[in-house]
């Protein structure tokens, strides 16, 4: 399911996701915008990989979805969903805490 990505590559992508979200914290980014930004660094990154990584970071408590007032919670496509760092996420991005899985 990792689509041929090795561990280092996976960590790089996840780290850069945190960096991009940290730069605009406390604002949020759409998944599509995040992907377009990361494509500069990872030209073969596809959206399914990004979605898995977003899901992973969300379950670890580093990223949360922001549901706008006008969003339909269940029907918003993934590409249009907004994400931002949680407090734990910003701590990790600032290297205040450590996560061996993202080193």
């Amino acid at each position, binding site marked *: 399911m990792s689509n*041929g*990505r090795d561990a*280092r*590559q996976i960590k*790089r*992508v996840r780290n*850069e996701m945190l*960096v*991009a979200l940290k*730069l*605009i914290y*406390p*604002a*949020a*980014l*759409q998944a599509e*915008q995040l*992907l*377009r*930004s990361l*494509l*500069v*660094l*990872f*030209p*073969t*990154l596809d959206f399914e990989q990004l979605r898995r990584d977003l899901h992973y970071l969300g379950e670890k408590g580093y990223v949360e979805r*922001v*549901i*706008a*007032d*006008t*969003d339909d919670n269940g029907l918003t496509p993934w590409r249009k969903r*907004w994400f*931002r760092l949680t407090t734990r996420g910003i701590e990790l991005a600032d290297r205040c805490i450590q996560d061996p899985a993202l080193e």
Partner: protein
Amino acid sequence: MVSLPGVANDVASAPRGRRGTRAAPSVPRSPARERRSRKSAGARGTAMPNAVPVGAMAKRSTAMPTSNPAPAGTDADPAADWPARLTAYRCRQSSVASILDSVLGPFAQCNPELWERRTYLMLVGLVYGALCEDELPTAELTTLAKVLSELRPARLRGPTRDPATSSAGEPPAGQGKLPDRFADIVRQVYGTNFHPPAETTPAGDQNA
């Protein structure tokens, strides 16, 4: 196949693919162009995101800033220039973030509820997306970020007035020296008259 000076024959004669194409001069690739390239690659039935015509690459190389990252190879290949690419990418991201903070940050600081609002999110996302496109060179973005950062203290001090349009030495109404009387200060600040609390004075008792 374009033969490049300084490139070994084995590289130049390598099968046209990721490494073969990327042996060309370092050319940054924008997300939008990446998607367009992917679409065109998909239409041609190829899965190579790097399959870009040589002419297009040459045209792109003249339009791109030299400070942009040059994604040589693919992300599957830990190329030796990864630190340089990463540095250039983060430099651009940092400039974009600085611009966003300068332009949209004050809104968020004054009203945290805006973070949840679609309008604010849309603005941040749209501006971020537009700035991350490589239509704007990184150097220009960096300059803009610096200018905005330098303007910030002046902006925080408030708008500057043209001395020619203001009367000599007289601050405009509502600014400058406060009135002497407390009631006048209240009237100026709140727009209403100040009514001191009723005190029981001998005179008041007598009037009552």
